[in-house]
């Protein structure tokens, strides 16, 4: 933090804060200055009984008042040149370290704009953006539904139901024997985390496509909020971050990324088509979902998953990380949609439904496509949940990013090795070759075998997530070294194999003891 603000600015903030909050304190300082002759050789606050803010509280900008007002003012007069230079050197060193940290991590803010690290380069097209003529709108068919069909085809009628019954029995048995990661509290932690997402269905409730009855600027006599596109983007991103988004980008609407249908949970109901029409407001009718063509903007959002939980995958605790991510996503997009509607525009909040989140997130510069065939962000790796909001609110688009991930994935393969079901590709290069009907063809990537993946879900009694936890980009946010490694990988792919070896040597990505989560990690300050 110390490298973020110039000293003069810190001083101004400090003085303003003082004058506004504590006039008595200012008076006390003035008195201290007048009496400075008696105070030579003393550090005022340390030697006096009066301790402002409990002995020198830090203020915005990392300023400590007791130190700043007295040590700098009086000590400069009292101490010799040598001491002053020493102190100056220390401050400069601290500032330099702060600057290095800010440079590497990009952990600074400027108004509403959050700056990303400088090693995350913006590019005109996403890496792995090659598409063939086969690329079409995805059916939208839930991957689980595809699995049921394939399971029945391969193992005969009733095989899926038998598998589910066996899984249910196992889960109950594990509760009785208190199997680590599958005890009753473990399983119920996940159930609790699903709560918000369970009430989020496309087109209704939280994810309603139409206006909720709130006051808006479009009521008679009022005008919708207008501002330049850059400012609009900044405003929307600030709101999204407030609601819980950690990475936000704006992408142009691309109809090819929008699913053809919204599957209905009730088997008796027909899946609803998603259509684009020249209408003013979105609609979710009994037969179809209508997206107005004027909705040319997509707010792509990434919500980080809790690493403490994810590192317990494949267990019910690992599931809780996904569940929580989904529930947070539902909360963020629904809140943001209400905010945008309140400004006088239309908004469609979506979590995993309605459209493919990954291509929008790629276009919005949230991350890059990886060996997992999932998005990997430079900040949180693949341990994020994606969601999006479609809108007609004009905003400046963001650019895709390149941080050297594709090259890293070519040599790493740690996720493929860690995958318990061997569902991930070991190919050196990405290709157009799909693995099954769950893949959307026509684009270049490392396609995964979702059938194997889902089969393992049934066997393990959890939604796995080992690939997400094992990725070298999935790291805590405390150690500078992680950022330094990612920064080096982005500019020098030649070092990628070394980083992969080091990642293993340092023991990253291994499954942690599920029982310890309740006693240790649940109270730690790790990223969540």
């Amino acid at each position, binding site marked *: 933090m110390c490298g973020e603000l110039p000293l003069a600015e810190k001083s101004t903030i400090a003085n303003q804060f003082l004058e506004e909050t504590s006039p008595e304190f200012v008076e006390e300082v003035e008195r201290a200055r007048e009496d400075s002759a008696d105070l030579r050789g003393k550090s005022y606050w340390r030697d006096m009984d009066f301790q402002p803010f409990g002995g020198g509280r830090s203020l915005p900008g990392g300023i400590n008042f007791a130190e700043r007002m007295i040590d700098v003012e009086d000590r400069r007069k009292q101490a010799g040149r040598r001491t002053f230079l020493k102190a100056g050197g220390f401050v400069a060193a601290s500032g330099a370290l702060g600057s290095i940290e800010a440079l590497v991590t990009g952990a600074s803010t400027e108004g509403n704009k959050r700056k990303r690290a400088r090693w995350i380069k913006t590019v005109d097209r996403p890496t792995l953006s090659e598409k063939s003529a086969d690329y079409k709108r995805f059916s939208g068919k839930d991957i689980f539904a595809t699995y049921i069909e394939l399971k029945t085809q391969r193992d005969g009628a009733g095989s899926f139901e038998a598998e589910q019954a066996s899984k249910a029995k196992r889960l109950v048995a594990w509760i009785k024997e208190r199997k680590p990661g599958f005890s009753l509290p473990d399983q119920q932690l996940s159930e609790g985390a699903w709560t918000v997402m369970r009430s989020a269905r496309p087109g209704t409730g939280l994810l309603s496509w139409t206006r909720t009855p709130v006051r808006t600027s479009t009521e008679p006599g009022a005008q919708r909020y207008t501002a330049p596109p850059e400012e609009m983007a900044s405003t929307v991103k600030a709101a999204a971050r407030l609601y819980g988004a950690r990475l936000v980008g704006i992408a142009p609407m691309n109809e090819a990324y929008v699913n053809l249908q919204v599957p209905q949970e009730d088997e008796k109901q027909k899946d609803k088509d998603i259509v684009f029409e020249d209408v003013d407001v979105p609609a979710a009718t009994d037969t179809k979902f209508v997206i107005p063509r004027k909705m040319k903007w997509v707010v792509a959002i990434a919500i980080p998953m809790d690493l403490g939980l994810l590192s317990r995958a494949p267990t019910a605790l690992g599931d809780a990380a996904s569940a929580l991510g989904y529930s947070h996503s539902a909360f963020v997009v629904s809140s943001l949609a209400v905010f945008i509607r309140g400004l006088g525009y239309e908004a469609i909040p979506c979590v995993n439904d309605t459209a493919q989140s990954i291509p929008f997130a790629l276009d919005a510069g949230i991350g890059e496509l990886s060996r997992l065939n999932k998005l990997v962000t430079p900040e949180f790796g693949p341990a994020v949940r994606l969601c999006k909001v479609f809108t007609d609110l004009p905003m400046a688009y963001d650019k895709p990013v390149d941080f050297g991930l594709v090259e890293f994935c070519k040599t790493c393969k740690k996720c493929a090795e860690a995958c318990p079901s061997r569902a991930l590709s070991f190919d050196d290069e990405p290709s157009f070759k799909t693995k099954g009907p769950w893949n959307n063809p026509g684009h270049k990537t490392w396609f995964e075998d979702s059938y194997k993946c889902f089969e393992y879900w049934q066997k393990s009694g959890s939604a796995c997530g080992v690939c997400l936890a094992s990725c070298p980009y999935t790291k805590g946010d405390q150690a500078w070294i992680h950022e330094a490694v990612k920064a080096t990988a982005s500019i020098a792919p030649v070092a990628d194999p070394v980083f992969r070896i080091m990642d293993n040597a340092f023991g990253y990505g291994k499954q942690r003891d599920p029982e310890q989560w309740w006693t240790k*990690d649940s109270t730690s300050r790790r990223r969540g």
Partner: protein
Amino acid sequence: MTMANATDVFTITIRKRPWWFWALAGLWLLLEVLTLQTALASVEEGEPRAATISWIAAVGLAVVGVLAWLRRGRSEKLGESNRQPEGAPTPV
């Protein structure tokens, strides 16, 4: 001036350290700070193996730094004691 007084000559040598000394010292300090930060942060992140390796590296670096410093000081002292100061009268 007696003979005894003539030998009481002290020479203070102020030697400018070469640039590479400061470069090495800077590199050592940077590595030390990085390894220490990684060690502390790894504990915070719940990565025991990374923390152990980083602690070992940090302590190892510190020991190497201290030993190098001591060794350098010792060699400087030895060099000075063997050297005859210029212009000093030779004891008879």
